[in-house]
Protein backbone atom coordinates (compact mmCIF):
# COMPACT_ATOMS: atom_id res chain seq x y z
CA UNK A 1 0.00 0.00 0.00
CA UNK A 2 2.77 2.40 0.92
CA UNK A 3 4.58 1.47 -2.25
CA UNK A 4 1.43 2.02 -4.27
CA UNK A 5 0.93 5.49 -2.80
CA UNK A 6 4.57 6.26 -3.45
CA UNK A 7 4.17 5.26 -7.09
CA UNK A 8 1.02 7.31 -7.43
CA UNK A 9 2.84 10.39 -6.20
CA UNK A 10 5.72 9.87 -8.61
CA UNK A 11 3.28 9.20 -11.42
CA UNK A 12 1.35 12.36 -10.68
CA UNK A 13 4.52 14.39 -10.84
CA UNK A 14 5.67 12.91 -14.15
CA UNK A 15 2.15 13.05 -15.54
CA UNK A 16 1.81 16.72 -14.75
CA UNK A 17 4.92 17.51 -16.81
CA UNK A 18 3.59 15.35 -19.65
CA UNK A 19 0.49 17.51 -19.40
CA UNK A 20 2.54 20.68 -19.87
CA UNK A 21 3.82 19.27 -23.13
CA UNK A 22 0.56 17.64 -24.19
CA UNK A 23 -1.42 20.88 -24.01
CA UNK A 24 1.02 22.36 -26.52
CA UNK A 25 0.17 19.60 -28.97
CA UNK A 26 -3.51 19.97 -28.28
CA UNK A 27 -3.64 23.74 -28.65
CA UNK A 28 -1.90 23.68 -32.01
CA UNK A 29 -3.99 20.74 -33.14
CA UNK A 30 -7.23 22.47 -32.17
CA UNK A 31 -6.43 25.47 -34.36
CA UNK A 32 -4.51 23.91 -37.24
CA UNK A 33 -5.65 20.28 -37.26
CA UNK A 34 -2.20 18.76 -37.42
CA UNK A 35 0.22 17.36 -34.87
CA UNK A 36 3.16 19.67 -34.47
CA UNK A 37 6.04 17.22 -34.25
CA UNK A 38 8.51 20.08 -33.90
CA UNK A 39 7.18 20.50 -30.36
CA UNK A 40 9.73 17.99 -29.04
CA UNK A 41 12.54 20.11 -30.45
CA UNK A 42 11.26 23.15 -28.58
CA UNK A 43 11.22 21.20 -25.32
CA UNK A 44 14.80 20.13 -25.91
CA UNK A 45 15.85 23.70 -26.65
CA UNK A 46 14.10 24.85 -23.46
CA UNK A 47 16.14 22.32 -21.50
CA UNK A 48 19.39 23.61 -23.06
CA UNK A 49 18.47 27.27 -22.50
CA UNK A 50 17.82 26.59 -18.83
CA UNK A 51 21.06 24.65 -18.55
CA UNK A 52 23.19 27.39 -20.12
CA UNK A 53 21.49 30.20 -18.26
CA UNK A 54 22.31 28.41 -14.99
CA UNK A 55 25.82 27.23 -15.80
CA UNK A 56 27.28 29.82 -18.19
CA UNK A 57 25.47 32.95 -17.05
CA UNK A 58 24.99 31.91 -13.43
CA UNK A 59 21.51 33.36 -13.44
CA UNK A 60 19.37 32.75 -10.38
CA UNK A 61 17.18 29.71 -10.82
CA UNK A 62 13.86 31.57 -11.22
CA UNK A 63 15.32 33.91 -13.83
CA UNK A 64 16.93 31.09 -15.78
CA UNK A 65 13.68 29.19 -15.65
CA UNK A 66 11.60 32.08 -16.95
CA UNK A 67 14.26 32.97 -19.50
CA UNK A 68 14.22 29.43 -20.90
CA UNK A 69 10.43 29.52 -21.18
CA UNK A 70 10.47 32.87 -22.99
CA UNK A 71 13.19 31.75 -25.42
CA UNK A 72 11.31 28.54 -26.13
CA UNK A 73 8.14 30.53 -26.81
CA UNK A 74 10.01 32.80 -29.24
CA UNK A 75 11.50 29.82 -31.06
CA UNK A 76 8.14 28.06 -31.29
CA UNK A 77 6.74 31.18 -32.96
CA UNK A 78 9.77 31.31 -35.25
CA UNK A 79 9.17 27.71 -36.33
CA UNK A 80 5.56 28.60 -37.11
CA UNK A 81 6.60 31.61 -39.19
CA UNK A 82 9.20 29.70 -41.16
CA UNK A 83 7.76 26.21 -41.48
CA UNK A 84 3.97 26.57 -41.32
CA UNK A 85 2.89 30.08 -42.21
CA UNK A 86 3.81 29.78 -45.90
CA UNK A 87 1.73 26.59 -46.02
CA UNK A 88 -1.21 28.24 -44.29
CA UNK A 89 -1.15 31.10 -46.76
CA UNK A 90 -1.46 28.61 -49.60
CA UNK A 91 -4.13 26.47 -47.91
CA UNK A 92 -1.82 23.50 -48.29
CA UNK A 93 -3.10 20.00 -47.45
CA UNK A 94 -2.36 18.86 -43.91
CA UNK A 95 0.18 16.26 -45.04
CA UNK A 96 2.47 19.14 -46.00
CA UNK A 97 2.26 20.47 -42.46
CA UNK A 98 3.27 17.11 -41.02
CA UNK A 99 6.22 16.84 -43.38
CA UNK A 100 7.25 20.39 -42.61
CA UNK A 101 6.95 19.65 -38.89
CA UNK A 102 9.18 16.60 -39.19
CA UNK A 103 11.69 18.61 -41.17
CA UNK A 104 11.75 21.34 -38.53
CA UNK A 105 12.13 18.75 -35.80
CA UNK A 106 15.11 17.09 -37.51
CA UNK A 107 16.66 20.45 -38.24
CA UNK A 108 16.48 21.52 -34.58
CA UNK A 109 17.92 18.24 -33.32
CA UNK A 110 20.79 18.20 -35.78
CA UNK A 111 21.48 21.87 -35.29
CA UNK A 112 21.98 21.20 -31.58
CA UNK A 113 24.18 18.17 -32.25
CA UNK A 114 26.30 20.19 -34.66
CA UNK A 115 26.69 23.26 -32.45
CA UNK A 116 26.48 22.06 -28.85
CA UNK A 117 27.39 18.43 -29.40
CA UNK A 118 25.69 15.12 -28.72
CA UNK A 119 26.91 14.67 -25.14
CA UNK A 120 24.77 14.51 -22.04
CA UNK A 121 24.76 17.53 -19.78
CA UNK A 122 23.76 17.45 -16.15
CA UNK A 123 21.95 20.32 -14.51
CA UNK A 124 23.66 21.73 -11.45
CA UNK A 125 21.95 20.75 -8.20
CA UNK A 126 19.63 23.66 -7.62
CA UNK A 127 18.37 22.34 -4.35
CA UNK A 128 19.01 19.40 -2.13
CA UNK A 129 18.10 15.89 -3.20
CA UNK A 130 16.89 15.19 0.32
CA UNK A 131 13.19 14.24 0.00
CA UNK A 132 10.40 15.47 2.22
CA UNK A 133 9.06 12.85 4.59
CA UNK A 134 5.36 12.51 5.01
CA UNK A 135 4.86 9.68 7.48
CA UNK A 136 6.19 6.62 5.70
CA UNK A 137 6.22 8.38 2.30
CA UNK A 138 9.20 10.03 0.67
CA UNK A 139 8.38 12.90 -1.60
CA UNK A 140 11.22 14.22 -3.72
CA UNK A 141 11.72 17.99 -3.67
CA UNK A 142 12.14 18.06 -7.43
CA UNK A 143 9.02 15.92 -7.93
CA UNK A 144 7.07 18.27 -5.71
CA UNK A 145 8.31 21.26 -7.63
CA UNK A 146 7.49 19.61 -10.96
CA UNK A 147 3.96 19.00 -9.81
CA UNK A 148 3.40 22.41 -8.28
CA UNK A 149 4.80 24.36 -11.22
CA UNK A 150 2.92 22.28 -13.77
CA UNK A 151 -0.33 22.56 -11.87
CA UNK A 152 0.00 26.33 -11.61
CA UNK A 153 0.76 26.65 -15.33
CA UNK A 154 -2.12 24.40 -16.33
CA UNK A 155 -4.58 26.20 -14.08
CA UNK A 156 -3.46 29.53 -15.53
CA UNK A 157 -3.83 28.16 -19.05
CA UNK A 158 -7.32 26.84 -18.46
CA UNK A 159 -8.34 30.12 -16.88
CA UNK A 160 -6.94 31.99 -19.87
CA UNK A 161 -8.74 29.81 -22.42
CA UNK A 162 -12.08 29.68 -20.62
CA UNK A 163 -12.43 33.11 -19.12
CA UNK A 164 -10.61 35.71 -21.19
CA UNK A 165 -11.62 37.36 -24.44
CA UNK A 166 -8.49 36.14 -26.18
CA UNK A 167 -9.15 32.62 -24.88
CA UNK A 168 -12.67 32.68 -26.27
CA UNK A 169 -11.28 33.91 -29.58
CA UNK A 170 -8.91 30.93 -29.57
CA UNK A 171 -11.84 28.59 -28.99
CA UNK A 172 -13.81 30.27 -31.75
CA UNK A 173 -10.91 29.98 -34.17
CA UNK A 174 -10.49 26.33 -33.23
CA UNK A 175 -14.11 25.78 -34.14
CA UNK A 176 -14.14 27.72 -37.39
CA UNK A 177 -11.34 30.02 -38.59
CA UNK A 178 -13.41 31.57 -41.38
CA UNK A 179 -16.24 32.52 -39.08
CA UNK A 180 -13.84 33.97 -36.54
CA UNK A 181 -12.16 36.05 -39.23
CA UNK A 182 -15.62 37.40 -40.03
CA UNK A 183 -15.92 38.49 -36.37
CA UNK A 184 -12.81 40.61 -36.81
CA UNK A 185 -10.53 38.14 -35.07
CA UNK A 186 -7.01 38.32 -36.45
CA UNK A 187 -6.53 34.59 -36.95
CA UNK A 188 -2.84 34.97 -37.71
CA UNK A 189 -2.38 36.54 -34.28
CA UNK A 190 -4.31 33.64 -32.75
CA UNK A 191 -1.89 31.19 -34.36
CA UNK A 192 1.09 33.15 -32.99
CA UNK A 193 -0.47 33.21 -29.52
CA UNK A 194 -1.09 29.49 -29.54
CA UNK A 195 2.48 28.71 -30.58
CA UNK A 196 3.84 31.14 -28.00
CA UNK A 197 1.82 29.53 -25.19
CA UNK A 198 2.73 26.02 -26.32
CA UNK A 199 6.40 27.02 -26.59
CA UNK A 200 6.42 28.71 -23.19
CA UNK A 201 5.03 25.61 -21.48
CA UNK A 202 7.39 23.42 -23.51
CA UNK A 203 10.31 25.49 -22.21
CA UNK A 204 9.15 24.95 -18.64
CA UNK A 205 8.70 21.24 -19.24
CA UNK A 206 12.16 21.10 -20.83
CA UNK A 207 13.84 22.61 -17.79
CA UNK A 208 11.93 20.32 -15.41
CA UNK A 209 12.88 17.23 -17.40
CA UNK A 210 16.43 18.44 -17.77
CA UNK A 211 16.66 18.68 -14.00
CA UNK A 212 15.03 15.34 -13.40
CA UNK A 213 17.08 13.45 -15.97
CA UNK A 214 19.84 15.02 -18.08
CA UNK A 215 19.95 17.17 -21.19
CA UNK A 216 20.78 15.67 -24.56
CA UNK A 217 19.69 16.34 -28.15
CA UNK A 218 17.16 13.50 -28.21
CA UNK A 219 15.40 14.51 -24.99
CA UNK A 220 12.56 15.78 -27.16
CA UNK A 221 11.72 12.14 -27.75
CA UNK A 222 9.99 12.21 -24.38
CA UNK A 223 7.32 14.32 -26.04
CA UNK A 224 6.18 11.23 -27.88
CA UNK A 225 4.81 10.24 -24.48
CA UNK A 226 2.96 13.50 -24.14
CA UNK A 227 1.73 13.11 -27.68
CA UNK A 228 0.33 9.70 -26.75
CA UNK A 229 -1.25 11.32 -23.72
CA UNK A 230 -2.78 14.03 -25.91
CA UNK A 231 -4.21 11.44 -28.31
CA UNK A 232 -5.43 9.36 -25.37
CA UNK A 233 -7.21 12.36 -23.85
CA UNK A 234 -8.51 13.50 -27.23
CA UNK A 235 -6.43 15.75 -29.47
CA UNK A 236 -7.67 19.30 -29.40
CA UNK A 237 -9.14 19.05 -25.91
CA UNK A 238 -7.21 20.71 -23.10
CA UNK A 239 -8.85 18.87 -20.20
CA UNK A 240 -8.39 15.71 -22.26
CA UNK A 241 -4.67 16.38 -22.63
CA UNK A 242 -4.29 16.94 -18.89
CA UNK A 243 -6.27 13.88 -17.85
CA UNK A 244 -4.60 11.70 -20.47
CA UNK A 245 -1.18 12.81 -19.27
CA UNK A 246 -1.84 12.17 -15.60
CA UNK A 247 -3.25 8.73 -16.36
CA UNK A 248 -0.24 7.90 -18.53
CA UNK A 249 2.21 9.17 -15.92
CA UNK A 250 0.64 7.07 -13.17
CA UNK A 251 0.34 4.02 -15.42
CA UNK A 252 4.01 4.27 -16.32
CA UNK A 253 5.29 4.54 -12.79
CA UNK A 254 3.05 1.72 -11.63
CA UNK A 255 4.34 -0.49 -14.43
CA UNK A 256 7.98 0.33 -13.79
CA UNK A 257 7.37 -0.11 -10.07
CA UNK A 258 5.61 -3.46 -10.18
CA UNK A 259 7.04 -5.04 -13.35
CA UNK A 260 10.03 -3.43 -14.89
CA UNK A 261 10.81 -0.21 -16.70
CA UNK A 262 11.47 -2.31 -19.80
CA UNK A 263 7.71 -2.74 -20.09
CA UNK A 264 6.95 0.92 -19.58
CA UNK A 265 7.29 2.17 -23.14
CA UNK A 266 5.90 -1.02 -24.58
CA UNK A 267 2.73 -0.35 -22.67
CA UNK A 268 2.48 3.34 -23.61
CA UNK A 269 2.83 2.58 -27.27
CA UNK A 270 0.37 -0.30 -27.10
CA UNK A 271 -2.00 2.12 -25.45
CA UNK A 272 -1.62 4.50 -28.40
CA UNK A 273 -2.44 1.78 -30.88
CA UNK A 274 -5.41 0.57 -28.88
CA UNK A 275 -6.83 4.08 -28.65
CA UNK A 276 -6.34 4.72 -32.33
CA UNK A 277 -8.13 1.49 -33.17
CA UNK A 278 -11.04 1.65 -30.74
CA UNK A 279 -11.58 5.29 -29.93
CA UNK A 280 -9.74 7.52 -32.38
CA UNK A 281 -11.17 10.72 -30.89
CA UNK A 282 -9.79 9.84 -27.45
CA UNK A 283 -11.45 10.35 -24.08
CA UNK A 284 -12.65 13.90 -24.72
CA UNK A 285 -11.84 14.52 -28.38
CA UNK A 286 -13.61 17.29 -30.20
CA UNK A 287 -16.75 15.92 -31.78
CA UNK A 288 -18.70 19.11 -32.15
CA UNK A 289 -21.23 19.06 -34.92
CA UNK A 290 -22.97 21.90 -36.57
CA UNK A 291 -26.68 21.81 -37.10
CA UNK A 292 -27.94 22.63 -40.56
Amino acid at each position, binding site marked *: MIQFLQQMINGLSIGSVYALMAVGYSLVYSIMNFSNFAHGGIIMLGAYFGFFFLTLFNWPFAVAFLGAAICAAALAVLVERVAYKPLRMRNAPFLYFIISAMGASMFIENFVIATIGPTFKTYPAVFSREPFRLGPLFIGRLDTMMFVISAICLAALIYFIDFTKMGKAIQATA*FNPRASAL*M*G*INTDLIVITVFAIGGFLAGIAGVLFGMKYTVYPQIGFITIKSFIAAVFGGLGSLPGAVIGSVILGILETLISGYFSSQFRDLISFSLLIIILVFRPIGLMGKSTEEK*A
Partner: protein
Amino acid sequence: MLKVENLHVYYGGIHALKGIDISVEKGEIVTIIGANGAGKSTLLNTISGLVRSREGRIIFKGSLLRPVPHHIVMKGICQVPEGRLVFANLTVKDNLLLGAYLRKDKKGIKKDLEKVYELFPRLAERQKQLAGTLSGGEQQMLAMGRGLMSDPELMLLDEPSLGLAPILVDTIFAVIQDIKKIGKTILLVEQNAYKALSTADRAYVLEQGKIVKAGKAADLIEDPTIQESYLGQKAEAGDRKSEVGF
Protein backbone atom coordinates in the same frame (compact mmCIF):
# COMPACT_ATOMS: atom_id res chain seq x y z
CA MET B 1 -21.54 53.72 -49.41
CA LEU B 2 -20.21 50.56 -51.08
CA LYS B 3 -19.02 50.44 -54.65
CA VAL B 4 -17.75 47.31 -56.37
CA GLU B 5 -16.08 47.93 -59.72
CA ASN B 6 -15.17 45.42 -62.40
CA LEU B 7 -14.54 42.62 -59.90
CA HIS B 8 -12.96 39.43 -61.23
CA VAL B 9 -12.44 36.40 -58.99
CA TYR B 10 -10.91 33.07 -59.90
CA TYR B 11 -10.73 29.77 -58.02
CA GLY B 12 -7.76 28.22 -59.73
CA GLY B 13 -8.96 27.97 -63.31
CA ILE B 14 -12.62 28.68 -62.51
CA HIS B 15 -13.65 32.22 -63.38
CA ALA B 16 -16.26 32.72 -60.63
CA LEU B 17 -16.92 36.47 -60.92
CA LYS B 18 -16.58 38.05 -64.35
CA GLY B 19 -16.48 41.79 -63.93
CA ILE B 20 -19.08 42.67 -61.29
CA ASP B 21 -20.23 46.26 -60.80
CA ILE B 22 -22.64 47.00 -57.98
CA SER B 23 -23.29 49.80 -55.54
CA VAL B 24 -25.11 50.09 -52.25
CA GLU B 25 -26.27 53.42 -50.82
CA LYS B 26 -26.63 54.24 -47.14
CA GLY B 27 -29.88 53.04 -45.60
CA GLU B 28 -30.82 50.72 -48.47
CA ILE B 29 -31.58 47.05 -48.61
CA VAL B 30 -30.00 45.78 -51.81
CA THR B 31 -30.48 42.16 -52.80
CA ILE B 32 -28.57 39.92 -55.13
CA ILE B 33 -30.54 37.00 -56.43
CA GLY B 34 -29.20 34.12 -58.42
CA ALA B 35 -29.22 30.35 -58.75
CA ASN B 36 -26.91 27.86 -57.07
CA GLY B 37 -23.31 28.50 -58.05
CA ALA B 38 -23.98 31.90 -59.59
CA GLY B 39 -21.25 33.43 -57.44
CA LYS B 40 -23.28 35.14 -54.73
CA SER B 41 -21.24 33.88 -51.79
CA THR B 42 -18.04 34.51 -53.70
CA LEU B 43 -19.03 38.16 -54.07
CA LEU B 44 -19.76 38.58 -50.35
CA ASN B 45 -16.59 36.72 -49.38
CA THR B 46 -14.54 38.95 -51.63
CA ILE B 47 -16.05 42.04 -50.03
CA SER B 48 -15.24 40.52 -46.59
CA GLY B 49 -11.65 39.84 -47.59
CA LEU B 50 -11.87 36.05 -47.30
CA VAL B 51 -11.36 35.63 -51.04
CA ARG B 52 -8.92 37.69 -53.10
CA SER B 53 -9.91 39.29 -56.37
CA ARG B 54 -7.66 39.23 -59.40
CA GLU B 55 -8.97 42.46 -60.83
CA GLY B 56 -11.26 45.28 -59.78
CA ARG B 57 -11.83 47.52 -56.81
CA ILE B 58 -14.01 47.61 -53.73
CA ILE B 59 -14.60 51.08 -52.32
CA PHE B 60 -16.28 51.64 -48.97
CA LYS B 61 -17.14 55.15 -47.79
CA GLY B 62 -14.79 56.65 -50.32
CA SER B 63 -11.70 54.58 -49.62
CA LEU B 64 -10.28 51.38 -51.03
CA LEU B 65 -10.79 48.28 -48.84
CA ARG B 66 -7.68 46.33 -47.95
CA PRO B 67 -8.47 42.61 -48.40
CA VAL B 68 -7.85 41.71 -44.74
CA PRO B 69 -10.93 40.36 -42.94
CA HIS B 70 -10.39 42.00 -39.56
CA HIS B 71 -9.66 45.40 -41.10
CA ILE B 72 -12.88 45.17 -43.02
CA VAL B 73 -14.88 44.39 -39.88
CA MET B 74 -13.18 47.36 -38.21
CA LYS B 75 -14.26 49.59 -41.10
CA GLY B 76 -17.89 48.68 -40.39
CA ILE B 77 -18.75 45.80 -42.70
CA CYS B 78 -19.82 42.50 -41.23
CA GLN B 79 -20.95 39.32 -42.90
CA VAL B 80 -23.50 36.83 -41.61
CA PRO B 81 -22.25 33.79 -43.51
CA GLU B 82 -24.13 31.11 -45.36
CA GLY B 83 -24.80 28.17 -43.07
CA ARG B 84 -24.64 30.49 -40.01
CA LEU B 85 -21.31 29.16 -38.74
CA VAL B 86 -22.15 29.86 -35.11
CA PHE B 87 -19.51 28.74 -32.63
CA ALA B 88 -21.24 25.57 -31.48
CA ASN B 89 -18.71 24.99 -28.69
CA LEU B 90 -19.48 28.32 -27.00
CA THR B 91 -22.56 29.71 -25.29
CA VAL B 92 -25.05 31.99 -27.01
CA LYS B 93 -23.80 34.94 -25.00
CA ASP B 94 -20.15 34.21 -25.81
CA ASN B 95 -21.06 34.01 -29.49
CA LEU B 96 -22.67 37.42 -29.28
CA LEU B 97 -19.72 38.91 -27.40
CA LEU B 98 -17.32 37.55 -30.01
CA GLY B 99 -19.31 39.55 -32.53
CA ALA B 100 -18.12 42.62 -30.62
CA TYR B 101 -14.52 41.36 -30.58
CA LEU B 102 -12.97 44.53 -32.00
CA ARG B 103 -14.99 46.96 -29.90
CA LYS B 104 -13.59 48.63 -26.83
CA ASP B 105 -16.68 50.57 -25.66
CA LYS B 106 -18.00 48.38 -22.84
CA LYS B 107 -21.15 50.47 -22.43
CA GLY B 108 -21.96 50.35 -26.12
CA ILE B 109 -21.47 46.59 -26.17
CA LYS B 110 -23.81 46.16 -23.25
CA LYS B 111 -26.43 48.34 -24.89
CA ASP B 112 -26.18 46.48 -28.17
CA LEU B 113 -26.43 43.15 -26.36
CA GLU B 114 -29.72 44.29 -24.89
CA LYS B 115 -30.85 45.49 -28.33
CA VAL B 116 -30.09 42.08 -29.82
CA TYR B 117 -31.99 40.34 -27.02
CA GLU B 118 -34.91 42.67 -27.72
CA LEU B 119 -34.79 41.82 -31.41
CA PHE B 120 -34.47 38.08 -30.66
CA PRO B 121 -36.10 37.26 -27.30
CA ARG B 122 -35.32 33.60 -27.97
CA LEU B 123 -31.65 34.31 -27.60
CA ALA B 124 -32.15 36.05 -24.28
CA GLU B 125 -33.79 32.92 -22.90
CA ARG B 126 -30.92 30.79 -24.14
CA GLN B 127 -27.94 32.96 -23.23
CA LYS B 128 -26.12 30.26 -21.29
CA GLN B 129 -26.89 27.40 -23.66
CA LEU B 130 -24.25 26.13 -26.07
CA ALA B 131 -24.90 27.48 -29.55
CA GLY B 132 -24.64 23.98 -30.98
CA THR B 133 -27.82 22.98 -29.16
CA LEU B 134 -29.95 25.66 -30.83
CA SER B 135 -32.40 24.88 -33.62
CA GLY B 136 -31.59 25.96 -37.18
CA GLY B 137 -33.80 29.05 -36.92
CA GLU B 138 -32.34 30.03 -33.58
CA GLN B 139 -28.84 29.61 -34.99
CA GLN B 140 -29.73 31.97 -37.82
CA MET B 141 -30.94 34.53 -35.29
CA LEU B 142 -27.75 34.07 -33.32
CA ALA B 143 -25.65 34.56 -36.44
CA MET B 144 -27.51 37.78 -37.24
CA GLY B 145 -27.32 38.97 -33.64
CA ARG B 146 -23.62 38.21 -33.55
CA GLY B 147 -23.18 40.26 -36.72
CA LEU B 148 -25.09 43.18 -35.21
CA MET B 149 -22.82 43.13 -32.15
CA SER B 150 -19.97 44.55 -34.23
CA ASP B 151 -22.19 47.62 -34.69
CA PRO B 152 -21.67 47.52 -38.45
CA GLU B 153 -22.77 50.16 -40.92
CA LEU B 154 -23.15 47.60 -43.68
CA MET B 155 -24.35 44.05 -43.12
CA LEU B 156 -23.80 41.34 -45.69
CA LEU B 157 -26.38 38.58 -45.28
CA ASP B 158 -25.74 35.33 -47.14
CA GLU B 159 -28.94 33.34 -47.63
CA PRO B 160 -30.42 33.91 -44.18
CA SER B 161 -33.54 31.93 -45.06
CA LEU B 162 -31.72 28.82 -46.26
CA GLY B 163 -33.21 25.63 -44.92
CA LEU B 164 -35.75 27.30 -42.64
CA ALA B 165 -39.47 26.49 -42.31
CA PRO B 166 -41.69 29.04 -44.09
CA ILE B 167 -42.94 30.58 -40.87
CA LEU B 168 -39.36 31.19 -39.76
CA VAL B 169 -38.47 32.62 -43.14
CA ASP B 170 -41.12 35.27 -42.51
CA THR B 171 -39.66 36.06 -39.12
CA ILE B 172 -36.18 36.42 -40.54
CA PHE B 173 -37.31 38.79 -43.28
CA ALA B 174 -39.27 40.83 -40.74
CA VAL B 175 -36.12 41.14 -38.68
CA ILE B 176 -34.20 42.28 -41.75
CA GLN B 177 -36.69 45.17 -42.03
CA ASP B 178 -36.19 45.90 -38.32
CA ILE B 179 -32.43 45.99 -38.81
CA LYS B 180 -32.87 48.49 -41.60
CA LYS B 181 -35.02 50.61 -39.27
CA ILE B 182 -32.23 50.85 -36.71
CA GLY B 183 -30.11 52.47 -39.39
CA LYS B 184 -28.11 49.63 -40.92
CA THR B 185 -27.49 49.24 -44.61
CA ILE B 186 -27.99 45.72 -45.93
CA LEU B 187 -26.66 43.72 -48.85
CA LEU B 188 -28.76 40.58 -48.97
CA VAL B 189 -27.98 37.49 -51.00
CA GLU B 190 -30.91 35.14 -51.51
CA GLN B 191 -32.27 32.25 -53.49
CA ASN B 192 -35.75 32.95 -52.19
CA ALA B 193 -36.20 35.61 -54.87
CA TYR B 194 -39.77 36.47 -54.08
CA LYS B 195 -39.08 37.21 -50.44
CA ALA B 196 -35.88 39.05 -51.22
CA LEU B 197 -37.47 41.25 -53.86
CA SER B 198 -40.41 42.09 -51.63
CA THR B 199 -38.06 43.16 -48.86
CA ALA B 200 -35.38 45.01 -50.80
CA ASP B 201 -35.24 48.50 -52.30
CA ARG B 202 -33.03 47.55 -55.22
CA ALA B 203 -31.86 44.29 -56.73
CA TYR B 204 -29.27 42.73 -58.98
CA VAL B 205 -29.60 39.43 -60.78
CA LEU B 206 -26.43 37.39 -60.88
CA GLU B 207 -26.00 34.60 -63.42
CA GLN B 208 -22.79 32.63 -63.86
CA GLY B 209 -20.62 35.34 -62.41
CA LYS B 210 -22.18 38.25 -64.27
CA ILE B 211 -24.81 40.82 -63.34
CA VAL B 212 -27.51 40.35 -65.97
CA LYS B 213 -30.13 42.68 -64.60
CA ALA B 214 -30.38 45.53 -62.13
CA GLY B 215 -33.16 47.80 -60.96
CA LYS B 216 -35.75 48.64 -58.37
CA ALA B 217 -36.89 45.54 -56.53
CA ALA B 218 -40.51 46.51 -57.09
CA ASP B 219 -39.90 46.60 -60.86
CA LEU B 220 -37.96 43.37 -61.04
CA ILE B 221 -40.68 41.50 -59.22
CA GLU B 222 -43.02 42.40 -62.13
CA ASP B 223 -40.44 41.59 -64.81
CA PRO B 224 -41.71 38.64 -66.91
CA THR B 225 -38.27 37.06 -67.49
CA ILE B 226 -37.52 37.24 -63.78
CA GLN B 227 -40.91 35.82 -62.94
CA GLU B 228 -40.22 32.95 -65.26
CA SER B 229 -36.73 32.04 -64.05
CA TYR B 230 -36.81 33.01 -60.41
CA LEU B 231 -40.41 33.35 -59.28
CA GLY B 232 -41.73 30.24 -61.05
CA GLN B 233 -43.28 28.72 -57.99
CA LYS B 234 -44.40 32.08 -56.69
CA ALA B 235 -44.30 31.76 -52.94
CA GLU B 236 -47.27 32.61 -50.77
CA ALA B 237 -46.98 36.12 -49.50
CA GLY B 238 -47.43 35.21 -45.86
CA ASP B 239 -48.14 38.22 -43.70
CA ARG B 240 -45.28 39.17 -41.50
CA LYS B 241 -45.51 38.59 -37.84
CA SER B 242 -42.68 39.92 -35.84
CA GLU B 243 -42.63 37.13 -33.32
CA VAL B 244 -43.73 33.58 -33.91
CA GLY B 245 -43.22 30.40 -31.98
CA PHE B 246 -41.03 27.71 -33.42
